[in-house]
Structures are given as structure tokens and as C-alpha cells.
């Protein structure tokens, strides 16, 4: 017999983690939709978000800065500061790197983002060391929302579900009904034509990157909250996010949201039902096997635009 409460609890946990993944995944598909950059450093961007909150909230940078030299910020201030860092990082990335790779072959862009991933995680490791960094109490939501069958959804997951729903709806509205959103869509569909009509491509790229990095950083922060602190394991979400966006169709924001929920469910169900037979860690591998299946069966995903190639 199926143990209904346990199954329900697993599904709730899956949706919770999936919603947090959805934030990171939407960051990915936003960038791909507008600028055509496939960002393999998405997991590391989430990592940057998670660790910067820890750095701001409890400053103990092991390099250059002696202990106690930096002011300790409160939890909420640290969050805001991290989001500001995300925005700055977006501008910096566009100015310093991605400007040079407009119109370059996909190989170059993939390698550049892979290299960026190495830079981010190496630099964070240099700043704070390779260890797990616990978040201060003020940043750990220790409440939970009760649900039927005696299960409950813990604070970070609940925030994740609400926030990712808000973000996906906001992004859909933004792209459909605002002027800036239309400009972003125009730039995405034909850069040359958009430029001829007076759209500043540079500005659209900066907007896309800052939006994407901000959403991704929030996702990383929530992931860290769910674990009680920032750890380098967040890096591996990058590959899981790729599964979600491929399933949703690369350039569709709602697709990324749905894909991430499915991947989160797959992961939790795999952890609950399969891991005992195959070995620890299989929960992270199950989405990858699912990915291979999607690529062969339905490569353009649920809502992706099918590309037609001509010589």
C-alpha cells in the first residue's frame, strides 16, 4: 500500500525545492531569451548570492581583512546589499565580458560561461574558505506552514513557492504589458531591426543581466536558508537547472518555472523511493537521466520555439 502522508510530504518537499530551483531557472531562461547567452555559470551565480549574504551578515573574510574590521549588517540589510551586488555584477559582466562575445559562435559563449563559473567559485573560496557558513538566526525562518495529512512546509520553501509564483507572474506581465518588456522582446527577436528602431541593445542586455542575476541570487539565498547556511553544494544546482530549462523549452520563462517544479518533484521522489536501492546521491542523478530522455524525445521542450535552419 502507498503511504499517503509520506507520499504527500515528499510531494510538498519536491514542490518546495522545485520552486526555489524555479527562481534560478527563470534567471537562466531570461538571459537566454533576451541575449542568447547559455549561462553555464548559473549555479555559481546562486552560490555568489548565498555566500554574499553570509559575508555581509557575519563578516569573516579570511583574506586581507582582519576579524571585526567589517561592520556586521542585520539580516534584511544583508539581503538588500546582496541584491545590490547582484545588480552591480550584472552591469559589470555585460560591460567587461559579454559585450565582446555578441555574435560569437555558441562554443565561445559556453566556454566563457564555464570559465566564469570557475572564476566565481574560486573567488568565493578565496574569500571565505571552502567551508560551510551558517547563516545568523535573523536570516533563518524557523516557522512552517501546516498542511493536510499532518505535513508541513518549512519557511524557506514556503517563501520560495510564493516568491517564484510572484516572479513568474510578474515576468509574464512585464514582458507582455510594459514598454521595457516589449523592448526586451524586440531585442530578443531581431537585434538589428530593434537597433534600427532606436532600441539601445546595450541597455537591454544590462537590464536582462541584472534582472537575471538578482532572481538567481534570491534563489541561491533561499537554497542556503533551506540548508541553514551557505555551502559549495549549491554549485551543483547548475546542472539541475539546465534540466529544468531544457524541459521547459530554453527561452520560455513559465516553461522554466514548470520544468523546475517537475525536476524538484523528481528529485524528492527519487530520494524517497529509489535511493535506498541504488545508492546515496541518486536523487541528483535522476533528473540528469530524465534530461537525456527529454533531449532525445522532445528536444525543444514544452514551450520552446522550434528553430528552423536554413543554409
Amino acid at each position, binding site marked *: 500500500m502507498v503511504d499517503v502522508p509520506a507520499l504527500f510530504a515528499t510531494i510538498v518537499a519536491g514542490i518546495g525545492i522545485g520552486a526555489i530551483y524555479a527562481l534560478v531557472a527563470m534567471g537562466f531562461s531570461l538571459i537566454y531569451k533576451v541575449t542568447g547567452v547559455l549561462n553555464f555559470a548559473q549555479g555559481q551565480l546562486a552560490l555568489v548570492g548565498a555566500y554574499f549574504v553570509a559575508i555581509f551578515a557575519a563578516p569573516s573574510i579570511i583574506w586581507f581583512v582582519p576579524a571585526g574590521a567589517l561592520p556586521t549588517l542585520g539580516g534584511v540589510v544583508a539581503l538588500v546589499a546582496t541584491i545590490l551586488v547582484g545588480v552591480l555584477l550584472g552591469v559589470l559582466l555585460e560591460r567587461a565580458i559579454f559585450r565582446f562575445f555578441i555574435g560569437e559562435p555558441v562554443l565561445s559563449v559556453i566556454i566563457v560561461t564555464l570559465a566564469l563559473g570557475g572564476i566565481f567559485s574560486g573567488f568565493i573560496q578565496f574569500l571565505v574558505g571552502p567551508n560551510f557558513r551558517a547563516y545568523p538566526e535573523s536570516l533563518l525562518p524557523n516557522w512552517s506552514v501546516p498542511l493536510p495529512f499532518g505535513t508541513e512546509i518549512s519557511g524557506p520553501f514556503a517563501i520560495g513557492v510564493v516568491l517564484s509564483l510572484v516572479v513568474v507572474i510578474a515576468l509574464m506581465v512585464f514582458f507582455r504589458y510594459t514598454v521595457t518588456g516589449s523592448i526586451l522582446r524586440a531585442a530578443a527577436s531581431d537585434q538589428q531591426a530593434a537597433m534600427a528602431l532606436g532600441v539601445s541593445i546595450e541597455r537591454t542586455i544590462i537590464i536582462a543581466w541584472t534582472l537575471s542575476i538578482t532572481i538567481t541570487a534570491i534563489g541561491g539565498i533561499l537554497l542556503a536558508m533551506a540548508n541553514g547556511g551557505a555551502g559549495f553544494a549549491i554549485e*551543483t544546482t547548475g*546542472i539541475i537547472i539546465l*534540466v529544468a530549462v531544457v524541459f521547459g523549452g530554453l527561452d520560455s520563462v513559465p516553461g522554466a518555472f514548470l520544468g523546475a517544479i517537475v525536476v524538484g518533484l523528481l528529485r524528492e521522489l527519487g530520494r524517497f523511493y529509489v535511493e535506498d536501492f541504488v545508492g546515496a546521491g541518486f536523487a541528483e542523478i535522476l533528473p540528469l537521466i530524465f534530461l537525456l530522455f527529454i533531449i532525445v524525445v522532445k528536444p525543444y521542450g514544452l514551450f520552446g520555439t522550434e528553430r528552423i535552419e536554413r543554409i
Partner: protein
Amino acid sequence: MPCGEYFTDYGSRMGLFRWRTQRIALVLGLPIPFLLPFVIGGGTLNLFAQIYIFAIAVLGLNVILGYAGEIVLAQGAFMAIGAYSTSRMLGTGAGLLPAMIVGGFIAAGVSVAFGLPAVRVKGFYIAISTLALQFIAEWFFLNDKAAFIHGGVQQTVPVDVGLLGSFIRISSRTDIYFLALVSMLVFALLSLNFSRTGIGRSFRAVHENDLAAAVLGINVFRNKLLAFAIGGFMIGFSGGLYAVLIGFLDPSFFTIELTLQHYVMLLFGGLGRVWGALLGVAMVSILLDNLQEFFNTYAPDATSLIPVLFGAIIIVVLAVEPKGVLAALGQLKEYLRKWPYAY
């Protein structure tokens, strides 16, 4: 082309070594690596052996990425498969050479299996499917429950093995050095010649524009899988050699960082060119070794800056000279040839 040398037949025009300068360079240059063990020793010799081994892997990557244009992000996985299979085969007493060849074939098989999505998609999708392979392989080799297949998460590779059965013992560092050198030369010669065969040319056609290649009657899918098979074999083979060199197997040697390192080597040297790959491996390996030594001596806390530096190198190389050092050297040569004139 040097002055005063003319081709009088097609044979000499098509030769690997076409000009007198090249022949002289070959005669003078080839003995140097063979004489090296008598001059240097210890760690430096190990470093050179490692350069030769990585050169084989990077040449394999060059077949897939440089010739056929498929982005493969699973260097670590292929090398791990080769290494663990070699270690398993050595246990049966078959000898080192058959063990490495079997390891290469297993890696080639896995590589083809994960290249199968190429039937429907290309580019980015192949990149993620092989990246998935990398993570699956890391999990697989760390999993105790799969020990009946890979034979244990951590393994020691015997230091004294026969090359074929129990004949020709490979026991000392120098033996491994020569084995790696000879294998590297064989694979370098093979891939130099490979790029001039019909298959090599169809790979390049697929790389340039696979739609156009299909229109011209090239079976794109078969050629891509063939590239995966050949490249996978070379990378798996080098994984086996690497296992013998380090004498100890751990999944942490074969992570995504290794993949990134090999990409730096290939891109730094020059994508799609054998000499570029060799040059890139040598330069990046020596740089990496010195960097590690420098950081270990002066700033042990900052070793995590090495990936940062590597990433920066990749981005700068791709932005400034996407064709690598070899292309830059070619430009320098042209400049010197015309000097002091500008044309």
C-alpha cells in the same frame, strides 16, 4: 614557403614534412624528448610524462571539438572510465597495453551512447548531455554499491606491470615516461594524418555547416558518432596511462575541473590543430605546475585563485585571439618574414 624549394610532384606537396627546414627540425628535435630522462629526473620527469598523457586526451578532445565541432564537457568522465577499466583489466593479468586499449574502447562506447542525441539536436544540447555524463560518472565512481562494476572507489594501480601479458616490465618512472612519450607520438601522428583523410575532411565539413554537409551527401549523424568514438577512445586510453602514472585512483582526480583544464589547453594552443593542442598542453601544464608551486610556497591560502586565473585566461584568449597561440605565432612569423617591409 622558404626560398628556393619547389614541389615537383603531388607526393611531396601532400607530405607531412614538406620543406627542408621541417626535416632538419625533425632530425634535430625528435631525439630531445628521448634523451630527456638522462638529464632531468624526479618531479620534472613526472611532469613531462603527465604532459604527454594529457596531450593524448586533448588530441582526443580536438578530434571531437576541433574537427567535428561537437562540444563535449566530459573529459573527466571519459578519463575516469579509461582509468578504472584499465585498473580492472590489470587485475586479470592481461598486461598494460590490452588493458588500456579495452579502457579506450569502453570510453568510446560510453561516448557514442551519450553522443546519440546528436541524431536530433546539436551544439548546446550535446554540451549538456555530456555534462550530465560527467555528473553521472562522478556519482557512479563514488558509489559503493556499484563496486562490483568499477571495483572500488579508491584503488591502487600496481607499479610493476608487463606491457603485454607479463612481458616487457613497466616498473620505473622512466619506463612510464617512455611509454607515455611513444603513445603520444603515435596518437599525434595518427591525428595529424587523420585530418587529411576523407573522414577527417567530412568531419570538418560537418563542423563548418552540418546542413550544407548533409546536402553534399555526408552522413552527418554517422560522422558525429564516429568522431565521438575516436575521440572517446583516445581520452579513455590516456585515462589508463594516467592511472598508471599516478598509481592511485580516486574520483576526485576526474572532476569537471579536469575538463576545464583541457579546454584551456586546447583553446590556448589553437583549436583544430594538432600542433596547437601539443603546444597548449605543454605551456598550460608547465604554467599550472609553477603556479601551484608558487602558491604552495608563498600563499597556501590562495590556491583557490588558480581556477580564477584559468577562467581569466580562457576569457582573454577567446576575446583577443580565438584561434590560439599557434595563430599568433603564425602572424609573428609572417611579420618577421616580411620585415622590414610592411607587405
